[in-house]
């Protein structure tokens, strides 16, 4: 429980209706996209950097921890108030300060929804490449916190590659600006890149300078359909080996094809073992050549290869892919998602590894992957109400992580560590590296008040 004094002060800072302390309100800020939940002491929604500073100072005076939150769509438990803490929600900081198409930069508040930014950018024929599947709901602040990826990452890179600078409120209540609107790297230590992906454990982001680029003049979307998921993974390796970089190279297996077809009716054959969604972009005159090269490679294994003929068809295909996570509750009510990532050349081996885990643990796994990046999302389906089954799932998840590490991969490509993958982090990094992480955390946040218990334990 927060004391009356603290609640009163919070209300003075952000206004009465931007402070939540009732049970109903707290319940709705206790979950995210994972199966975890917690209950915050309170929820406060600032609207300006000054208010954030005031909140941080007040929390420091009363020794209260803060959990930053955007839309709460993450897959790592990063926004769960797992310890006694106040949730600081950025969903009401939604201003787009500036869109500067001459210098390829936009300045936004952290609560701006990725999709809403894209809509504004599109009016000026620009876009922001990082496009996590949750982009219609997730915030730029959340994308920065988790260093989100998305289908376009194969060609364009992840969120980190599009953040030029940040305004950050540090745990001591001081405001710093890292980087800026310039394209070149900044002098001094690269604080921008330390804050991006730090999941709010080092500072609270209150302004984001994002790099924007012109929308490509043309794009082509292709579908390659396979009997077996292993076959699809071979095409991925072949395309990469041929030195081609499509914009996206996405894989969905039979299970996901079916759950997404139920929703989108995109016309992907339900009996296919897997589908690859391949997109290329660039100048109109480059399209045919790229499509032909990719088609030639795919057709050696794929049972069908086609190019989408209309914008509607392309939309349906992407709606399918983006709703993959959301759609699996049609099969079982709960899912555990991984974002293990392996070097591209090891992708076929990783697919084999996932199939083996499914067999060894007798669990249902649906596979969707940013295949071009070697980034896999095996979705283990189960019912959380069944305790025994839940434990098997956790064991299978661990096996998947170990499998990725054995293939020189990582336990997390883009979802962040949060609470869910914290226990595997020291499997990936040496004790010395883990200690370096802790030192960084302590130097920013010596009293461990920003998103405590996430990423690493001190």
């Amino acid at each position: 429980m927060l004391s009356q004094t603290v609640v009163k002060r919070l209300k003075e800072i952000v206004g009465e209706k931007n402070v939540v302390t009732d049970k109903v309100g707290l319940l709705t800020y206790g979950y995210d996209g994972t199966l975890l939940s917690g209950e915050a002491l309170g929820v406060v929604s600032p609207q300006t950097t000054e208010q954030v500073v005031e909140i941080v100072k007040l929390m420091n005076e009363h020794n209260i921890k803060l959990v930053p939150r955007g839309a709460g769509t993450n897959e790592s438990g990063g926004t769960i108030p797992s310890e006694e803490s106040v949730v600081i929600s950025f969903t009401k900081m939604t201003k787009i300060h500036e869109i500067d198409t001459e210098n390829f930069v936009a300045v936004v508040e952290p609560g701006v929804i990725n999709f809403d930014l894209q809509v504004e950018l599109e009016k000026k024929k620009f876009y922001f490449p990082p496009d996590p599947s949750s982009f219609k709901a997730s915030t730029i602040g959340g994308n920065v916190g988790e260093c989100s990826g998305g289908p376009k990452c194969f060609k364009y890179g992840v969120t980190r590659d599009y953040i030029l600078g940040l305004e950050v409120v540090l745990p001591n209540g001081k405001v710093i600006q890292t980087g800026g609107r310039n394209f070149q790297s900044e002098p001094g230590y690269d604080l921008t890149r330390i804050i991006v992906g730090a999941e709010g454990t080092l500072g609270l982001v209150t302004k984001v300078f994002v790099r924007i680029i012109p929308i490509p003049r043309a794009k082509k979307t292709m579908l390659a359909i396979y009997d077996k998921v292993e076959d699809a993974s071979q095409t991925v390796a072949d395309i990469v080996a041929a030195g081609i970089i499509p914009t996206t190279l996405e894989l969905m297996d039979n299970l996901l094809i079916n759950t997404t077809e139920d929703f989108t009716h995109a016309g992907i054959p339900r009996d296919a073992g897997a589908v690859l969604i391949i997109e290329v972009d660039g100048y109109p005159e480059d399209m045919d050549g790229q499509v032909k090269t990719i088609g030639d490679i795919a057709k050696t294994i794929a049972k069908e290869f086609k190019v989408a003929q209309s914008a509607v068809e392309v939309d349906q295909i992407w709606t399918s892919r983006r709703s993959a996570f959301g759609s699996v509750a049609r099969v079982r009510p709960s899912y555990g998602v991984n974002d293990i990532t392996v070097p591209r050349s090891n992708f076929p081996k990783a697919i084999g590894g996932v199939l083996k885990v499914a067999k060894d643990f007798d669990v249902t796994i649906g596979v969707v992957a940013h295949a071009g990046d070697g980034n896999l999302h095996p979705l283990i389906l189960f019912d959380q109400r069944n305790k025994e089954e839940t434990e098997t799932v956790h064991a299978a998840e661990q096996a998947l992580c170990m499998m990725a590490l054995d293939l020189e991969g990582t336990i997390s490509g883009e979802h962040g560590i949060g609470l869910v993958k914290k226990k595997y982090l020291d499997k990936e990094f040496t004790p010395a590296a883990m200690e370096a992480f802790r030192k960084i955390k302590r130097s920013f946040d010596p009293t461990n008040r920003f998103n405590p218990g996430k990423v690493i334990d001190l």
Partner: protein
Amino acid sequence: MGVLADVYEMLNTCNKCGGCHTACKTYKLTGSEEMSTRGRIQLIKAVADGKLEPNQEYEDAIMSCLLCGECAVTCPNGVHGNELVMAARRDLKLRKGIKPFAKSFALNTLASPKRLGMGFSLFKGVGKSVLNKIDGLDYFRGIDIRNFPTAKKPFLEQVPEKITVQHPKHKVGFYVGCFLNYSLDQTAHSVVKVLTKNDCEVIIPKDQVCCGLPQYAYGDFETAKRNARITIDTFLDKYSDAEVVLTACASCAAMLRHDYLTLFADEPSYLSKVKLFSEKVVEFSEYMAKIGVDQSKLHNSSPLTITYHDPCHMVRGLKVTKQPRQLLQMIPRVEYKEMFEANRCCGAAGLIQAFYHEVSTDITVQKTQNIKDTNADLVATSCPACMLRLQGGINKAGQKQKVMHVADVIANAYED
């Protein structure tokens, strides 16, 4: 618990991906999670699990849902948030009855023709002159009371029970609905005009009552059923010669066609009759497009730009979107312009505009801006509640567009 137990699997199918955030206007405009579909679902689940005792905040979360249905279209898992909210409202009704007083009074008034007539009469004559003197009431809760239209006499008292034509090709039963009867009687006349111009004999039963949607939406199934029975029996027994039951109110149409079936799902003996009735229900534009409007009779001398607003019950309830647009474009010299988010709620959402006016006002402001951006002269729509809400919002924003029912626009295009 029974009601929530029935929908528990659907509650449990929400895996909190947040995909509905983009669909939910009350969330988008407040940024508050408890005002999102996902938030509401998790709260209902907490109540179903016995982890939360329904309190005022819970009731606000449940009652502030627009029931626009967009979340159901957006959810990759096929979870229908609006149906879950309906179950929660029914559950609340069974637990506590309908509170507070104002809501209960409003619903009872709507259910009774006599009291409803008195209610609408508040907006005319002495009542209106009093209202006009109170400045603060001018835009009471975002509703433009001063310009709220009222029929001098209910439409049903203005017309005979049967309006014949020279060579009748069709016999149409006209379910007028409360708004067209008491407030927008001119629109009801437009409906009759368009029908008769296209060789339809119109049968207008005098003893029709409210369709029951307002009561149904707040969980009062008993009253809703009572009104539903009256409606069904009137049209099927007393006026069985009517080939179709036509209404020009999208909300009434969705209620008559779909929700009656849900409402009587637990009464198999009556359900077959409900099915017969449901199959007869048609919405105005849907019907006119089906029987065909003689385009050669439509005239219009000066260029006119029209945009169309899809009422929630039209686009997601009846899934009718093409027909009204086709009809409008049949009129000579009409330029049709589509607005941004034409299919999203206008903010009226039944009684939401009165009880949760802050959020509904923000929704309307967005809508009126989208209308302005089209540079249209006229906004056509298919629901009287939307018409009143949109015109109020447009007036409040100082814009000039006129809001009309599709039936009015077509009726105006006949020379006499």
